[in-house]
């Protein structure tokens, strides 16, 4: 079975449009970021979050009113959602304050929330979960996540520059940064909290995106050796088309798993799975339209003969066949 058989799409024709589209999304994301900010999860922002299980059904509205009335300082900064299966009557209430850092007073705020609920007579309830994070913890986490991303990008750039060419490394890294920015933009649009899980998803996306890019680059490198007289643009286009089936299938299976996590994974995994879905789509898109496009801009339309000094890909399994293959394609290229 084939999804794509001998396609011959001119992907690079759309490279400028694609780059414009990406910039539009990134700028829109930046606009939302600077006007409304990106909602930070409790582990980064600090604060108190409690999950209460009520014996009778309560509406979010009722809980909000109770917090507005009974919580010191009112509930204007409180985030209130139902948590998990609606039949369980679980409500999560998150406020940005924390009890004093000393003593057992850390839980003061959590108790104030419960007092407010008790005053509102919403029936009996019990606490099934608490999370309290002091302000000092978040900053450290943020710094580390950023460092991990920056260093892994530098590492990948170095590796690809060594295995392929410098322009390829730049293409892959720019594509990965592009994916990070697009994902953050979508997180800002859809107002998902930036939590540790989401950070883990974002870092996974960097891996996925480079993986996708490398597969295409690998084919370009291989074709560069057999298609010496063709322009870089043509070689890239042919390579993208040759790997198109694989690109779509791989992204498809990864997408299916992420979708399953999003639909059935429960409250805790929602943000994680959403980030993965966005990342898989943009990761696939960027390896075609951003990574390859950057190499094409860098190397221009000139014939590739001069620049084909890429390190040889050793294929010890079938050196003889490679010889044959090379001759054949060259013939074909001449004929066309």
């Amino acid at each position, binding site marked *: *079975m084939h999804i794509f058989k001998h396609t011959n799409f001119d992907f690079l024709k759309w490279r400028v449009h694609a780059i414009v589209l990406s910039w539009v999304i990134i700028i829109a994301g930046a606009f939302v970021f600077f006007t409304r900010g990106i909602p930070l999860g409790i582990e980064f922002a600090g604060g108190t979050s409690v999950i209460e299980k009520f014996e009778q059904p309560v509406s979010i509205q009722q809980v909000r009113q109770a917090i507005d009335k009974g919580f010191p300082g009112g509930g204007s900064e409180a985030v209130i959602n139902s948590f998990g299966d609606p039949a369980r009557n679980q409500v999560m209430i998150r406020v940005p304050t924390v009890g004093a850092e000393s003593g057992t007073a850390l839980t003061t705020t959590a108790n104030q929330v419960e007092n407010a609920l008790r005053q509102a007579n919403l029936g009996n309830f019990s606490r099934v979960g608490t999370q309290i994070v002091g302000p000092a913890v978040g900053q450290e986490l943020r710094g580390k996540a950023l460092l*991990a991303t920056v*260093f892994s990008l530098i590492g990948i750039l170095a590796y690809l520059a060594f295995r392929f060419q410098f322009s390829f490394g730049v293409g892959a890294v720019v594509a990965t940064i592009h994916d990070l920015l697009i994902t953050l933009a979508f997180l800002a649009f859809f107002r998902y909290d930036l939590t*540790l899980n989401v950070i883990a998803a974002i870092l996974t996306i960097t*891996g996925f995106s*480079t993986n996708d890019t490398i597969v295409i680059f690998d084919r370009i490198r291989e074709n560069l050796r057999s298609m010496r007289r063709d322009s870089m643009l043509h070689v890239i286009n042919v390579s993208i088309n040759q790997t198109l089936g694989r690109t779509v299938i*791989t992204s498809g*299976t990864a997408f*299916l798993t992420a979708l399953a996590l999003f639909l059935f994974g429960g409250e805790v*995994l929602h943000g994680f799975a959403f980030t993965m879905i966005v990342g898989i789509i943009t990761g696939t898109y960027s390896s075609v339209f951003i990574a390859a496009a950057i190499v094409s801009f860098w190397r221009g339309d000139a014939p590739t003969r001069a620049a084909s000094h890429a390190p040889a890909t050793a294929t010890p399994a079938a050196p003889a066949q490679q010889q044959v293959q090379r001759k054949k394609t060259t013939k074909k290229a001449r004929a066309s």
Partner: protein
Amino acid sequence: MSSTVRWKFITILAVFIVFGAVGVYPIAAQRYHLPAPGWLMDKQLKLGLDLKGGVHLVLRVQTDDALKSETQTEMERLREELTNRKIPFTNVALVSPTQFRVEGIPPDQDAAFRAAATETITNYDRGSSATGSYPFTMKPNIAVNLRDESVIQARQTIERRVNELGVAEPSIAQQGANGDQIMVQLPGVSDVDRAKSIIQSTGRLELKIVEQGPSPTRESLLVNGQVPNGMELVPGSSGSAGDSGTSWYMLRAAAAVTGRDLRTARPSLDENNQPAVSFSLNSDGGRRFGKVTGENIGRQLAIVLDGRVQSAPRIDGRINNDGRIYGSFTQQEAADLALILRSGSLQAGLTYLEEQVIGPTLGADSIRSGVVASMIGLLSIVVFMLVYYKLSGVNAVVALVANLVILLGLMAYIGAVMTLPGIAGFVLTMGIGVDSNVLIFERIKEELEAQRGVRASINAGFGRVFWTLVDTHIAALISVAFLFQFGTGPIRGFAVTLFYGLMSNLFTSIFVSKTLFELVLGNRAQPQTATLSI
């Protein structure tokens, strides 16, 4: 079947059985009550706090406390030395946790002071000043050592306390950029407040002779508006029953014995059958205690716990080894205090930075939805591969299952802890891992279309894709390495999952898949493309 293929097949089978036994069988055994040896069940994949329920705490060690107490001790030593040598000074005072200052040294005593200071104080740098006042600052390396020591001591003390609490599989680790944070995970604990106060309690016990008091106000104990030299004022309960007000005691600053001299402590009852805590001193502490109590018969002895007088009984006779602390304790409080005293005091105070409590129902919900989502995700991959690649799809599915089994086995073997994001990472590893098979299969298809033979196509497919896979896996490993380096807690676990996933994926997609193809082709001289069914 040629002998190489046979050996490959046996290798795969062996790997499958070993990893299956470690990673999969214990889970099934637990669920369906099958027989399994204990050592195997101990290796079982452990559930993280977010799935099992429990308490997660992050504390900061106030390392300044340890520095301050060291500086204070050194300052008192110098004060004593100056008094002994009859070198006059106007004031000795603490400036910061690492610095104290001596003021008002007369010019003619300057040389004598310097000599005394050099002999007595070695761990502090002496600043100079023209007006007869000298700052002493702790040497930086000494300060660093003291900070490290106080964190390690705090961790060990917390470990002892948590063990005494009887929590199964607690996890206690140092973390944070300055290394001054301690993370404590207590699975299955529901009484959070009790656990927290036991962990945090400084547990500093001092027994001191009462000079004056109790008095209802602090001011009434002052002599000429000042605390007399070598004395200190400490608050405490008034001692008379039914009076909850605070009263003040003037105590000798030097403690007769401290918690360090304790041999053991246990809950007991006082003469009115009220809960109390009995303690015994070690031989050295007992000797000193006997001397002090013998000299002070008729006076009161204050039992000071964490800077507060618990009780101040009268000394009726010489006491050598044993004592009792009473106050208005409940039975639980007495038991907890005995536990804290037994486990040793903390040199530095602790503050809570973070607290997370996961109720057992919440954990069960997470497991259910995590497992359901994973199953659906994996099944959809299996269905897709079978539909798209037909019989070769079976090959990919076998590789996928092998990958799953190996990964589960590896995780169980290294004692990894399964968290909810861990499960998600696991499933995604599978979803992305199919990529290797897709790459190979698509390449084989291309080779077949180029009218190469079946066997040659398979060899070319695996051969060419091998280096692509090496490149993608190394690039991924670079990311994983930094994720592990900079990540904390859950992110680190995530990185570990990805690492082992990449490794086992490389094995299954290349070795297992290829051997399966070789098995299918068997010894046929001219296999048909149809045999491959790709």
